[in-house]
């Protein structure tokens, strides 16, 4: 943090110094031309060059200011909106029902007025559009909640959240608000969780409603590829997609979550190459989540206890599984598998072999699931051990591949990522094994020495190359 602050301060200082030096140089140009040090043409070229650089800097500075203003606007609006919700939650007893109705409408009318004004008169101001739309979103929730409390009908949280999101989601498009889109995705998760806890089939509305906000991400990308709003929405969606399966899956058949998660992470890793394919993880949210997801999920599957928990094909027959919820479970599991396997085939056909180590996870998960589901009771032990060994081998191979490709491409972060994967695997196996403390100690020392030697060698090579 301190170094970031220092870097920013240093950045500001250097910008100011550059500006001063440019002004000095431009002031010197007539003298230099007069003395014949440079020709008039060269002087003109220099003037033009620094004028363009100055415009670029001014535009960049303007964008930063707009973003900072938008952040302040959204924060202010969100705080006021939350305050309104809390005031409503107090549920003032002294008010009569008509007074409550008027009070419920006050923030709503203010929010509509502000957002309408922002759309009509401040369409270019991100701060106005984002801030007013977030405030209106909070107001709609507060207004419906207050009216529902008046008639004691707020126990139906599922209906409340559904109506709230359905009424405010369009603001993401109409007011051009990215924050509303993010809150909408998160709000939908709460709706789905609430509906699922009541075994309500309405939970399935989550998928089409969440998908309805995808064009907003595409629009943010089109407006400014790789820009802050695209990244913000991408991070939000990627994280929401990780949280959604345990909420949405009805659990009609044990172990389907293995197929769902392996599919989601592999697809995110392989298919998200449209987003900053060569840059760091910070600017490629889907690839970052997919990569970390594959690694962590492979680690989970490398544990024998994961497989013993799902052994045998077990379908739960309870009345609470509406047939649509059961269909959703199978559709998600096998649909995601189909997409992931197709992606692997496409990458293989296009000879993009670097995608295969991560993309192969769903195929292995499907094989493991099929074996575990078919496992007869007597053969269960062997199957569980085989599955666990398969994923230990996969994770080790993945770690070694990442590490060696990092060394080959001289990318320190990548090499260390591979090493970290191997370390994670080792750590996990040492936790659930019966090896003595001494043996574990020695293994960790060896692993640590490996880390240090690999890093030192890599740094030396980089130095030599320079």
């Amino acid at each position: 943090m301190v170094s970031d602050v220092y870097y920013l301060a240093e950045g500001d200082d250097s910008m100011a110094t550059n500006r001063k030096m440019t002004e000095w140089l431009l002031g010197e140009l007539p003298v230099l031309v007069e003395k014949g040090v440079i020709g008039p043409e060269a002087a003109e070229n220099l003037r033009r060059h620094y004028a363009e650089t100055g415009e670029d800097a001014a535009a960049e500075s303007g964008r930063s200011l707009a973003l900072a203003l938008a952040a302040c606007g959204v924060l202010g609006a969100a705080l006021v909106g939350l305050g309104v919700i809390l005031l409503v939650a107090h549920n003032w007893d002294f008010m009569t029902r008509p007074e409550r109705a008027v009070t419920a409408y006050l923030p709503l009318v203010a929010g509509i007025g502000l957002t309408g004004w922002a759309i009509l008169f401040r369409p270019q101001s991100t701060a106005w559009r984002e801030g007013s739309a977030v405030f209106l979103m909070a107001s709609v929730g507060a207004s419906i909640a207050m009216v529902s409390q008046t008639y004691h009908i707020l126990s139906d949280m599922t209906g409340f959240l559904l109506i709230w999101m359905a009424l405010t989601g369009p603001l993401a498009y109409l007011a051009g608000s990215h924050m509303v889109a993010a809150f909408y995705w998160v709000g939908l998760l709460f709706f789905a969780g609430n509906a699922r806890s009541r075994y309500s089939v309405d939970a399935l509305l989550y998928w089409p409603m969440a998908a309805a906000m995808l064009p907003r991400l595409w629009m943010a990308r089109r407006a400014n590829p790789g820009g802050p709003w695209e990244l913000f929405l991408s991070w939000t969606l990627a994280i929401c997609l990780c949280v959604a399966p345990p909420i949405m899956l009805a659990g009609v058949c044990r172990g389907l979550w293995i197929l769902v998660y392996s599919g989601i992470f592999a697809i995110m890793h392989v298919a998200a190459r449209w987003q900053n394919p060569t840059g760091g993880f910070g600017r490629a949210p889907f690839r970052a989540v997919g990569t970390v997801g594959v690694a962590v999920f492979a680690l989970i599957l490398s544990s024998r206890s994961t497989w013993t928990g799902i052994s045998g094909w077990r379908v739960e027959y309870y009345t609470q599984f509406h047939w649509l919820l059961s269909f959703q479970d199978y559709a998600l599991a096998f649909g995601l598998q189909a997409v992931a396997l197709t992606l692997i085939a496409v990458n293989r056909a296009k000879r993009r072999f670097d995608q295969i180590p991560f993309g192969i996870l769903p195929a292995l998960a499907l094989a493991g699931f099929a074996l575990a589901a078919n496992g007869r009771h007597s053969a269960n032990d062997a199957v569980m051990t085989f599955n666990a060994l398969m994923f230990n081998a996969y994770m080790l191979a993945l770690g070694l591949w990442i590490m060696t490709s990092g060394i080959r491409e001289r990318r320190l972060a990548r090499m260390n990522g591979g090493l970290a994967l191997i370390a994670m695997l080792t750590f996990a196996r040492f936790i659930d094994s019966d090896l003595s403390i001494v043996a574990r100690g020695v293994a960790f020392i060896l692993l640590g020495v490996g880390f240090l030697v690999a890093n030192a060698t890599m740094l030396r090579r980089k130095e030599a190359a320079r």
Partner: protein
Amino acid sequence: MFLAFMAVAAAQLYVPASIIVRYEAILARGKTYKFRARPVDPYDAMRGRYVALGFDDATTVTVRGARYEHGETVYVTLAVKPDGYARFAEASRTPPASGDYVKTTMDWDYAGKNWGRVIVPFDRYYMEESVAPEAEKAYREHATRKRQDAYATVRVLDGGAVLENVYVEGQPIREFARTVRKEKTAGE
């Protein structure tokens, strides 16, 4: 774009209004039923702003026809017991031809035994947070089997039901809680 926004804004204004109109109509023209209260499961994450209500044997209903799924919409007729308190009587998939009924959802249908349980759509009584805890305590003390002097009045009209008030010792719970709080403050 602005016209589309106006359409969305109109929907945002319409929803609270529709709730107000619907429930005001029930309060104005609905028939009043008394439901005897019973203690409720003490766990609830959102406590502090309302009193959670339970109703003595009111949720058990007669079920006829094909088995119901959990969460399925049902129409439940109301019956008044000899002691004057109401209870849910019979659940069906269509509204009854005559008499008052409440639209709600099925909780559990005990297959083959012709009875089941429905979810009560009026199980929370919202109050100001300063008195709600006191009111809840009073409710707990008075809804026990020994005392049984807590009950709720509910207005019912065309399948809709609104909780009108909750009474403890014959007094509205709001006033009861305030009196208890005043007595406590005076005692201190």
